[in-house]
Structure formats: structure tokens, C-alpha cells
């Protein structure tokens, strides 16, 4: 897309803020004991509280507090020692009580910021306004029932942390970088499983356009419920393009809520009411204000895992990695753990980094698999690294070993090397007769080499490698060929 350039040429600037809804990784719902497991049959995980039945009352699931606090600490925010749940009133069939319990005036997390890395390599600070706890709504299923709407309340009451950014982003790329940063952070902290395809992290994008240099904000639109980074980028770019086109035509952008349709790659207004929605917030009388003391905050801090940025810096120093390698290897906590395990059993950190980054991630990418599904364990990959390091196998053979372990043909590198006879032939005694035989079998080339065409060295080495099925140590072969031809 070249929209940002066109926009700049015409003197327009986009202003973007994101509201990210993160489903918290808890066993049960925020106000009931029903399971939050994804994928159950409709309405099998909805208890009377989730159904909003008469006389039931919410009780806060205490699991949500350390998660919200950990997030807040992770972005350098203030943790509110006093926060309040409110009722947000609106009617919709998948909102059982006719109100959502959320936090309006007194959210649990205030402020904070993250530093995102732009494509240019520069970093940019994105400020966070607040993050608050709330319950998710159910789902309306319009497709499956002829002329009717089905309601699935399994999701109703799933705990959410809504993270609201300042309008600090100016392009879709920045917004995506920010969203990815938040995704990485919440998965690192175990705040969320981050499964976007299951709706664990959903973005609402507030987009407006103004003349470059203007201080006043333009009229914004809110594009709701975008659940992939790719769609987020496309939705924002579409919205920027659309709004610029309206403004260039002398029109006015209407403040409205829109939905992104990935099939048509466009945003559309949601069916809207003639009047602005008034949610009539007021404090939830069924719940007491939440009071969190400093000792509790400190206990959460103590139990927090290493943050992505801390880990990246440690990897660069401790494992002598390039910034690029460290960034990739710390992109998720799982991958970082995997890498560290490979180093632990394989020994050579740079070799390990190369193998994880190039071979493992390349293969996963090619197969469309997740790290968790990789058939080669970190210990197995470590055993391959060990054998490369001690010259038992060459890098090329190592790839064969890797493929063999991937296919489940052996349980360790050593087993595979032994059963397939792949051990590197490196003794002079073993190699010398082979090299001599190859030279003897190719007298013309030997003659040409001796008369100065030294490039033919590669030919002889290649022949030896072929003869030994690549098991020969290429360095040694090189030396032997030279030695015999030059003698």
C-alpha cells in the first residue's frame, strides 16, 4: 500500500488510537464459576450468573487482579489502590443482564507506555491512557438459523482487560507494531493466551485525519473487533484512505462505529441508531470497590517473569547475539525458552541461534505450524548443535539429521547419525586413499590444476564429498586434495 505517501503529499496526517480487548487467562469467568475454555458447544459453559437470571449476583474472580496488575507494571503504569466496577447499560440479545460490568471512572490501571520499534529501526513511545477490567458479552450467531438469531453465552462473562492507548500513532504500521507489542507483553506475562483466532485479543481502531501540523483532532471513526494484525493494518489503511477521500471532496467524516469486512477489504458502518448511545454508567451496587495495597502489588511484581525487552537485552549480552537475532528469539516467551534450552544442551549459542532462527522457524513457517507443535524438541536440536560443534557431522549433514528427527525416524541426533552412518569421515588415514583415488581417476583435471587452474580444487573436493556422501570433513578434504595435487 502506498496510501501514507499519497496522504503526505496532500498534507494529511492520520491520528490513531487503539482499544485492545485482552481475554484474561483464567480458569473461570470474571463473575461466576463457569469455565472459560474455548470451543465448547453453545451455552454449555453459561451458569445462571452468566445468563443474568433473576436474583443472581456477581462475585469477582480474584484471579483477574494479579493479571491486570502485572500488565500495568509491565507498561510502567500506576496501579490504582482503589478501583470501582460500573454498569454500562445497553440492550442487546447477547448481553444477558442488559448491562455490562466494567470500570469507568476508577480503572485498575492508569497511564503507562510502550516503546515500539519502527521499520526504520527508530523507536517511538506510545502512551497508554488506562486499562480496566470488564466482562465479555456472548455471541450472536446470525448465519446458522434461517430467519432467526442464535445466542451463545459461553463467552459471556469471560474476563477482559481493555487497554486504551492515547492517539499517538500516525500510521497503520505503527498501530500494528503497537498491537504486536501488547500481544507479546500479555502472552509473556501469562495475562492472556493471545490466541487471536479465538478472539483472545481484539482491537478497536479509532482513526481520524487532520491537516499535517494541525493541533485539533478530526472527527474519528471507531472500527470494532478486528482480530488479526493483518486485518488491523488493512482496516486502518482503508479508513485513512476513505476519510482522506471524503475530506478532499470537501465532505465531512461522520463519527460512527464501523466494522471491517475482510472478504471485501473494507469498513462499513454498523447499523446505527439515529441518536448517540448513552450508556448511563453508574457504580455497580452488587460489588464493593476494589482496594489493592502496596504489598499486594509488590507480590505481583516479585512473581512477574522477565519482560520481552529485558530478555532481548540479556540475550544480546549473555549469548553474544546480534540485535536482530535477539529480537526474533525473544518475540515470544515460548521461543525464547526453546532457544535457551537448545543452548543449554547444545553449548554454542550463536550456532543455536542460527539453527533456531533459520532451520526451525523456516521449517515451521513452511509447514504452517506453531512452535508448540514442532516435532523436534529443544533437547533434540541441542544434540544436533553438539555434534556440529564437535565435528561429528557437517552443517549439511546436520540438516539431514534435523529432517530425520522431524520425521520421527530417531529420538536423538546420535541415534540417527549412527543408524544412518552419517558420522563425518575426518581421519587422514581414511580420507587419503579416497582423495588419491579421485585424483587418479581424473588425470586431465589434475593436469590442468597443476598447470595453474587452481579453481579446479573445488571440483576435486566436490567429487570427494559425493564419494563420501557428504560425510567427509570439507575442511580436511580441502587440505588433503591440495597436499596430494601439489606434491
Amino acid at each position: 500500500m502506498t496510501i501514507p505517501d499519497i496522504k503526505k503529499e496532500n498534507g494529511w496526517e492520520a491520528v490513531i488510537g487503539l482499544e485492545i480487548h485482552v481475554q484474561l487467562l483464567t480458569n473461570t469467568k470474571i463473575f461466576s464459576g463457569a469455565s472459560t475454555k474455548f470451543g465448547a458447544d453453545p451455552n454449555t459453559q453459561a451458569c445462571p450468573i452468566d445468563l443474568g437470571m433473576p436474583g443472581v449476583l456477581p462475585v469477582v474472580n480474584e484471579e483477574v487482579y494479579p493479571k491486570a496488575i502485572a500488565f500495568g507494571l509491565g507498561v510502567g503504569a500506576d496501579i490504582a489502590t482503589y478501583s470501582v466496577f460500573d454498569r454500562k447499560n445497553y440492550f442487546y440479545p447477547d448481553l444477558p443482564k442488559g448491562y455490562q460490568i466494567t470500570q469507568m471512572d476508577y480503572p485498575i490501571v492508569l497511564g503507562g507506555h510502550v516503546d515500539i520499534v519502527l521499520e526504520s529501526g527508530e523507536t517511538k513511545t506510545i502512551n497508554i491512557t488506562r486499562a480496566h477490567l470488564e466482562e465479555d458479552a456472548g455471541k450472536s450467531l446470525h448465519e446458522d438459523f434461517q430467519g432467526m438469531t442464535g445466542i451463545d453465552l459461553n463467552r459471556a462473562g469471560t474476563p477482559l482487560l481493555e487497554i486504551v492507548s492515547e492517539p499517538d500513532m500516525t500510521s497503520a504500521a505503527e498501530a500494528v507494531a503497537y498491537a504486536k507489542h501488547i500481544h507479546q507483553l500479555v502472552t509473556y506475562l501469562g495475562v492472556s493466551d493471545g490466541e487471536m483466532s479465538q478472539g483472545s485479543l481484539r482491537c478497536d481502531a479509532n482513526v481520524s485525519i487532520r491537516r499535517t501540523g494541525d493541533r485539533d483532532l478530526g472527527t474519528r471513526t471507531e472500527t470494532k473487533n478486528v482480530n488479526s494484525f493483518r486485518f488491523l493494518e488493512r482496516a486502518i489503511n482503508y479508513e485513512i484512505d476513505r476519510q482522506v477521500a471524503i475530506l478532499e471532496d470537501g465532505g465531512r467524516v461522520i463519527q460512527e462505529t464501523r466494522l471491517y469486512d475482510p472478504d471485501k477489504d473494507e469498513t462499513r458502518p454498523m447499523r446505527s441508531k439515529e441518536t448517540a448511545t448513552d450508556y448511563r454508567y453508574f457504580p455497580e451496587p452488587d460489588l464493593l470497590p476494589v482496594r489493592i495495597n502496596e504489598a499486594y502489588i509488590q507480590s505481583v511484581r516479585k512473581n512477574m517473569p522477565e519482560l520481552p525487552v529485558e530478555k532481548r537485552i540479556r540475550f544480546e549480552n549473555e549469548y553474544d547475539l546480534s540485535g536482530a537475532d535477539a529480537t526474533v528469539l525473544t518475540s515470544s516467551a515460548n521461543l525464547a525458552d526453546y532457544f535457551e534450552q537448545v543452548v543449554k544442551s547444545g553449548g554454542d549459542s550463536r550456532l543455536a541461534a542460527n539453527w533456531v532462527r533459520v532451520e526451525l522457524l523456516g521449517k515451521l513457517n513452511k509447514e504452517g505450524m506453531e512452535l508448540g507443535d514442532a516435532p523436534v524438541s529443544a533437547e533434540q536440536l541441542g544434540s544436533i548443535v553438539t555434534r556440529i560443534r564437535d565435528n561429528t557431522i557437517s552443517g549439511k549433514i546436520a540438516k539431514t539429521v534435523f529432517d530425520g528427527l522431524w520425521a520421527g525416524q530417531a529420538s536423538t541426533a546420535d541415534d540417527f547419525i549412527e543408524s544412518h552412518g552419517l558420522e563425518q569421515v575426518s581421519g587422514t588415514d581414511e580420507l587419503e586413499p579416497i582423495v588419491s583415488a579421485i585424483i587418479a581417476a581424473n588425470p586431465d583435471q589434475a593436469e590442468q590444476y597443476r598447470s595453474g587452474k587452481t579453481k579446479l580444487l573445488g571440483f576435486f573436493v566436490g567429487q570427494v564429498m559425493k564419494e563420501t556422501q557428504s560425510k567427509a570433513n570439507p575442511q580436511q578434504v580441502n587440505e588433503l586434495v591440495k597436499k596430494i595435487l601439489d606434491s
Partner: protein
Amino acid sequence: MMLHEHTIIELRTGLKNGEFTAEELTLHYLERIEGKARELNAFITVTPDIAMDQARQSDKDRGKGVAGKLSGIPIAYKDIFCTDGVRTSAGSLMLDKFIAPYSATVVEKLGEAGAVMLGKTNMDEFAMGSSNENSHYGHVLNPWDKERVPGGSSGGSAAAVAAGLCAAATGTDTGGSIRQPASFCGVTGIKPTYGRISRWGIIAYASSLDQAGPITRTAEDAALMLEVMAGHDAKDSTSIAAEVPDYSRTLGDSIKGLRIGLCREYFEDGLNSTTEKIIMEAVAVLESLGAVISQISLPSTRHAIPAYYVIAPAECSANLSRYDGVRFGYRCENPNDWEDLYKRSRSEALGNEVKQRILVGTFALSAGYYDAYYRKAQQVRRLIKNDFLEAFKEVDILLSPTAPIPAFRIGEKSGDQIAMYLQDIYTIASNLAGLPAISIPAGMNGHLPTGLQLIGNYLDEAGLLNVAHQFQLQTNWHQLSPPAADS
């Protein structure tokens, strides 16, 4: 003396001594309920099968020596307490077919103590009313005068206890809904401190004000019922964690030197002169027992009714949003779409008083009005609470009439909402402050009973019950039976 004229204390002795069985006692009440008293319309649902089963079980338990505190005592539940497997209507067409799959904590506790459930009593729809004229199931007649109302909203419970249709009944009190009908029907009714009794399973009207309590023939019985009903409940975040005292044990305490304050503002305009005379005679009785009487002022109390009629409707406007015809309750025929489903289901199944309060509450919470109404009302609420806290520095207990006039004629005030709302002028402030208060019979205004209200400091139910009991030892107003109890 007929069985139904006995107090719970007396019935317990009779059961213990084998003078009658729980089965006989229950049958006696069931016969009364289904007899001439049916015209009172005190019950919405009678549960003879459950009652007889529970009574037989009680007799068995007694035989085994494992009878609970209320074993074999036939009681009734206001039809706002959810009862597993038995319809809970809240007096509304909306819930005419609603059967909860759970019981209120109060119902469970009373059941565990061995109480026998006779049925569910009539009430103003969703507890909104002071005359029991707002029930989908028709109005309830006052057992003392069938031309008159029993008070509300717990009118069915008060009438049933007065007419000897049950030994005790539960009620709920949001602005006087236990005390005012208790006063009109000549029985004892206590609204404990907010949070003393779990609200789990009680259909919500105004969550920050709703509180359950017993309606009984005597203070002694109320103490016994309260001991069973009160206590912390993990399912209600607003329930108080304090230990439940043995209320019965302190009933014999002397009230010599007890400081009782007469609230000046409660003896002003609008108070029926006979009612005033009755209250002052009652004061003389307490004085003769050694109580020290003084006058105190609650200057903000005159704002109690306006504050209440903002806060209660605001909360109810959200609490009643769940009645949308989607998951349970009344659903209109052939809705065109979900909005039509909501509008028609609610229009058809909710009564006028309920609709009016929803409208008022929705308005009070609306953008632009919130500060002027809801926030202001909450400020008034704090002032009222502060008035009480100041008063309790001077005195131990406050005394007032329960209602400004005795039971009025059916239809007499139905055209005059303000006159109806003024019924709660002495009772509402204690709900706004969350204080415990009790109404006991204090005299007769012609042929109509008149109640005296005592308001205590937080968690001083024991003090209230003690004063009430001491008064009842000196008087026989609580022993008078209405004409409807003779048959």
C-alpha cells in the same frame, strides 16, 4: 388457643413436647390457607406437597433427635425469594412462568434449620409499591379490614402472618417494604443492617437498598428467624462478614438507662394525630422501663424521599433490563426483530408502576442529568447517613412511627403517587443509611393496628430486638388477632 395463634417459640415447645406433630401443624396451616382466608389473596403459590414432605421429614428428624432450630415450623416466602423448582414470580406477569433452578441463600438456610415451606406470598410487582395494589396476581386484603390495603410491598407476608396462615414469613425491605405492612397488619417486622442477610437468590429491585428480613408475631420470633437468616455469604459480595450474635439470648436484657431518641422531624406535618398519641403512649411504656428519652434532629431526612426516588429507580432501571424475553420470562408473540421483542415483551408484561420507575431511573442516569439527579441523590444519601451517625453519638436507638397513617382503603391513594410515596417517609432513611430498623405493634387506631419503629446503629439488631421484646412483655398489642384470623 388455636394452633395458628401461637408464636414460633410456643410451637417449638409444642412440637418438642409431642403435643402435635409438624405434619398436623402444617396441615392446619394449609387448611387455613385454602379456606376462607383465600379471599385475602395473601399467597401467589401454595406448595402443599412440598410442605407435607418437609413436615414429615421434620417429624422423622425429631424422632431421631436431629431437629433443627426451626424444625417443623411452617413459614411462607415472599414471592421474590427464588425457590428451586417452585415458581418465583416477583408479583409480575413477566415471571409468571419462571422457575429458578436455585434457591435463595435465605431459603436454603431456613430449609436447613427445618422450616416448612407453605408457599409464596403476594407482593407488589418487583417489590415496587406500598399497598400491594401493584401485583399481577391482584391486591391483598388487610386481615383487619378487607376494604383496606395490607401495605407493601411485602403485603402478602404481613397479611399471612397476621391472619394466622403461617407462623412467620420472609419479606424484603427497600424503602419500608417489611416495616410498613407489618405496621398495617399488626405484626412484627425487622429490616436488618444492609448486608446482614445475603441477597443471593432474592430478585433485585434496588441492590444498594434491598434487604431481607422476617415478619413474625413477636420480637422473640423475629430474633429466632434472624439468627437463621443472617450471616455472611460468599455468593453476595455486599454481605457482612461479622459473626451472627445469639439474638434470643440478649432479649432479657434490661433497658434501664438505654438512651432513646425521638426524631423531631418524624413528628411533624402529615402525621395522623391518633398515630402520634399511640407512639407517645408507647414511649411512656419504654420510659417506665428505665429508658431515657430525648429529642434528636435528623435535618437531612426531609430529602430522603426524593433521594430514594432517584437512587432506587436508577438501580431498578438496570436491574430489570434482563427481563427482555430472550432467555426466560414472558415473551411477546411473533416478534419482528429483537427490538420489537424487547419492546413488546416489556410493554406487555410489566405493570405501570414498574414501567414508571424504569423510566424515571433511566432519565436520572442519562447524560446531562446524572450530576443533577443521581450524583446529587448519592450526596444526599451521605448526608442522611451522617445525620444518623451524629444522632447515635447522643442516643442508642431512635424511635418514630412506622407510617404516618394506618392502613388506607384500597384504591384510596392509587391516583396520587406522592401520597403513596409519603407512606415511606419514616422508613426510607434507614434504607438509604443501611441501618437496621424494626416495626412492632404499638396500639390500635380504631380497628386498625399502628406500628412503632425503632432504628438502631449498624449491626445493632440485638439492641432493637431487645427493646421490642421488653415492650412486648409490657403490652399485648402484638397478641391481638384480626377478624380474618378467627375463621
